[in-house]
C-alpha cells in the first residue's frame, strides 16, 4: 500500500484535532484534541521513517509519547484545579481576564 496514504490520514487527524481545539468548549475535550494532534504528528513521523528507510522517526515517536504523558500530568492537574474552584471545565466560563 502506498505510504503516502498514511500521510493523508495523519493530516486529516491533525486537522480534526486543530478544528476541535478551536471549536470545542470543554477544557478536557480541547486537551484531547491536542493529544490527537500530537498523535497525528507521530503517525507522520513513523510514515516518514518507513519512506526514508531509517529508524529516526520511530525513535521520535517514542519521545513524543513520553512528552505527551508529562503533558497529561500537568494539564489534568491544572484542569482539575480550575474545575474544583469553578465547578465547570468550560473554557468560556474562564473569562476573568479581559480579552
Amino acid at each position, binding site marked *: 500500500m502506498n505510504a503516502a496514504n498514511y500521510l493523508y490520514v495523519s493530516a486529516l487527524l491533525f486537522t480534526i484535532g*486543530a478544528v476541535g481545539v478551536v471549536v470545542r468548549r470543554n*477544557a478536557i475535550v480541547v486537551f484531547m484534541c491536542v493529544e490527537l494532534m*500530537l498523535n497525528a504528528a507521530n503517525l507522520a*513521523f513513523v510514515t516518514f*521513517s518507513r519512506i526514508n528507510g531509517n529508524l529516526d522517526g520511530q525513535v521520535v515517536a517514542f519521545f513524543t509519547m513520553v512528552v505527551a504523558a508529562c503533558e497529561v500530568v500537568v*494539564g489534568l492537574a491544572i484542569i482539575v484545579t480550575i474545575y474544583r474552584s469553578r465547578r465547570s471545565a468550560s473554557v468560556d466560563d474562564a473569562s476573568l481576564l479581559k480579552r
Partner: protein
Amino acid sequence: MKFTTPVLDYAILSPILIVLAGALIGVMIEAFLSKTRRPIVQLILTLGTLLIALVQVFRIRNTTSLSAAMGSVIFDGPAFLLQMTILIISIISIFLIADNENFTALAAALPGSIEEQEATCKGNQVTEVYPLTLFAVAGMLLFPIASDLITLFVALEMLSLPLYLMAGLSRRRRLMSQEAALKYFLLGAFSSAFFLFGAAYLYGYSGLISFAGIRESIVGGTGNDVFLLIGIAFLSVGLLFKVGAVPFHAWSPDVYQGAPTAVTAFMAAATKVAAFGAMLRIYYTVFANAQWSWSPLLSVIAIITMLFGSFVAIAQRDVKRMLAYSSIAHAGFLITGVIALNKAGLSASIFYLFAYGIATVGAFAIVTLVRDSAGEVSDLNRWAGLGKRSPWVATIFAFFLLAFAGIPLTSGFIGKFSIFSAAYESGAKSVVIAGVLSSAIAAFFYIRVIVLMFFTDSHEDATTVVIPSVLTRITVIVSFVITVALGVYPAPLIDFINKFAIFIR
C-alpha cells in the same frame, strides 16, 4: 548487530546536568525537610546551583569539542552567550521569586477555603516553585543549543511544562491566576503540536533529524519542496508562539496579567531569550539557504507584531497588560534581528535579549512593590502621583520604561539601533521603517506612564509602595545597575558578544 557506546561529552552538558541535579535535590528536600526549614534551604540550593552552572558555562566557553551527545547539542559562541544570559536572568529573578508575598500558601486548596486560610496563617510557602524554576531553566539552557529535532522538542516541553504550573500559583486573585495557567497550558500545548507536526515534515523532507542533515538537504535541494515548506511553516508557528509574535500572541497579555508577578518577570525575560536563541540557531543555520521561502513571511509578521504591540499597548489600563503588549512589540524588534541573517544581526539580537531581559525583570520587580491593603495594584489610574509619594521607586521604573522605549543613554537604545542597522544592511528596509515608526508609537505610551507617575495628582484611594524586602531590593538594584551600565558604557559587552557570535554549522 554491534552496539556502539554513545560518546556524551559531559563537559558540554555539565551546566544542564548541574541544574537538573539541583532540581532533583530540591524535590527530595520537599519530601524530607520540615516546612519551616524548606524556604531558606531551597533558596540557598537554587541560588548555589545556578551560580555553579554559571561558572561552569563560563569555564567551558573555549572547549575544543563543539558537539556533544552524538551531535544532539552544539555548544558554540552564541550558545555560550545565550546560556550565560539565561542563567544571569534566572539568578536575578530567583530573588524576586523568593519573596514569599507572591505565592499562595497552599496551591491545592480551593481559593477562599478554610484550608487556605489556615495555611496562610501558618506562614506556609509553596517551595515547590524552586525545583520547578530549575527544571524550566534546564529546558531553557537546552533549547538554544539543541541541534536535532528530538532534543529541540523535548527542551521546548521541558521549559514550558513547569511554567504552566508556576503561572497558577498566585497568592491573590487566585481564580485569575488559575485561569492564566489554563490558557497558557492549552494554547502552549496547541502550539507545540504544530511544532511537532512541522518537525515531522522536516524529517520527511531530509530523512534525517539532525540540523546538519536537514541543512545539507536544503543546500542540495534533493527533497520534496512541499514537505520543506510545510515543515518550515509549522515549526515557525511553534516558535513564534513561544516568543509571542502576532498572530500567535493571544495568550501573553492574559498570562502576564494573571500569573504571579515574580513568575511573569522570569517567564517574560528568560523564555524570550531561550526561544529567540533557538529561533536564531534554526533560521541562521538550518533554514539559511531556504531564505526565499520564509524571509518575506517573517518580515510581514515582524511588521504587524511591532505595530500591533505598540498600538494596543496605548489602550491598556493595567500595568502588567501594558508590559505584555510592550513585550509583544519587542518580540517584533527581535524578529527583525532574525530576518537580518548576518553576523551583525546575530550579535545585535543577543545584546538586545540581554538588555531587554534584565530591564524586564527589573520593571516587574517594581510592579510587585506597588500595593494596597488587598495586594498588588496593577491598575494604571491608581499609579497616578506615585512619583510624589515614593520618588525612588517611580524614578527607577521610569528609567526601565525609557530603556524599553530606546531613549539614548539606556541599554534599549543601543539594542534597537544595532538591530535596525543590521537589518538595514541586509536590505530589509520596510521592516526597519516599520520598526522605527512603532518605536515612536511605543515611546508615547511609555512616556505617558511617566507623566502619570510624576505630573498627575493622586486619587483618594492611593496606593502605597511597600518597603521592599532585601530580596526584592537585590533584584531591583542589580537590574537597574546593569541597565544603566549597558546604556552608558556598552562597549565591553558588545566586544565580548562580537567575539563569540558565530554559529558553528
